[in-house]
């Protein structure tokens, strides 16, 4: 997946997990707290994202995540090629 594709999927995923969110207001730079997520909500979101995207956020790195773009970048960097 290229970055744009990942961004679309991540934003779509977030709208399924966070209630009352307008998809048009979310972008890469959206901070989790701006989406109404507290620190525990963010941990839950990342846990759910692991299942959805088939990845495993390394604890120390994920601790520093503050915005939607952090998730996108991580998935882009760690994605397994669809075919080789």
């Amino acid at each position: 997946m290229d970055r744009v594709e990942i961004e679309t999927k991540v934003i779509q995923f977030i709208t399924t997990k966070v209630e009352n969110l307008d998809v048009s207001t979310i972008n890469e730079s959206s901070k989790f707290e701006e989406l109404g997520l507290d620190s525990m909500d963010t941990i839950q979101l990342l846990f759910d994202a692991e299942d959805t995207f088939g990845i495993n956020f390394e604890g120390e790195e994920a601790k520093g995540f503050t915005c939607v773009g952090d998730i996108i970048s991580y998935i882009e960097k760690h994605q397994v090629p669809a075919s080789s």
Partner: protein
Amino acid sequence: MHVVVTGMGVVSPIGIGTDQFWAAAVNGISGIQRIRSFDASGQRSQIAGEITGFNPANFLSAKHIEQTDRFTQLALLATSLALEDAGGLDAYAPQRLAVSIGSGMGGFSTFESSATRNFRNQPIPPFTVPRTMANSAAAWIAIKHRLKGVNLTCSTACSSGANAIGMALDLLRAGRADAVIAGGAEACVLPLTMTGFEVLHALTTSFNTDPARASRPFAKGRDGFVMSEGAGVLILEKEEDAKRRGAKIYARLAGYGQACDATHIVMPDMNGQVAAMQSAIKDAGMEPDSIDYINAHATSTPLGDVVETRAIKHLFGDRAGDIAINATKSMIGHTVGASAAIGSIATIMALYTGTIHPTINLDEADPECDLAYTPNHSQQKNPRNGLCNAFGFGGNNASILFTTLE
């Protein structure tokens, strides 16, 4: 100072809400079926009292469902029903509203599923600990209803709910709260808990193909208890306050007794049971002669029902046979830490309506169980003073005494 019950909420295998629960109870309906929540074909005991028609999405957001174990969800529903029944507690300051909830196993469903994931090297849900902890239900009740007073959890196995209600009585008497949301909740119809009780030979195994007949307290041929889930919650207030706010009053919570066997971790001891009942009666300033109804602990284990029968005979002597006794577990199975909370609701309804619900599956009593257990059909007895017994692992015996207002 008297403490009264002004609201009740129950979530049980025979009904959600007191009306549904009581209608099924007086008609002797069994809520025991083959287990549906997981594949139980490998269990020795394949039946349980599971709650049908319960959907947490009806009252919790998706986020809150993710953050709560099933036992908390059951407790939250029972609490909402009880508060609604009591007409709310807006008359009191939030800081004076306490919560006292019992649970034997707490969020064991979460524990079991997260442990399984962990053993498979899968990540575990972030809310594993706050979902599992025993005080999760009491905490969520406080969060949902903004109850800022004392918040307690009691975990004494099968007597948890009784002790939680007893602790609530103590809180009100001590002036530490103006009203208490008190009860018990349990949701451990799970492979690990079932297997755990199976290896202790505590569960019934002979009625897997005839579930409705499996829970048979005091009956010949009983071979263990039926695992069950549920929640029961009472709203408790001081009588004068309840009357001042015009609340409907179901009964008085008149006494609470507690005694530890201090003998064996799982085997019951008659002396501890006698002491608990005696203590509850004394706590209410009454005499054994005034007791005319007992909602028995009666789990349907071969030993437990006989020991409780002996305890009642020992305490009440020649009058034992005159006391109306019944076993709510004959219909709903054993809801562990919720059992005495649900049993309390059955006790209160007996005092409030005059009807003693039946002990079902009691066609032929065990010769060693020879008291008046209200076999198979309800009886109109108009009891005035009812004990609700709860005896748990750890030799933990509790008895609570409810009375009519007059």
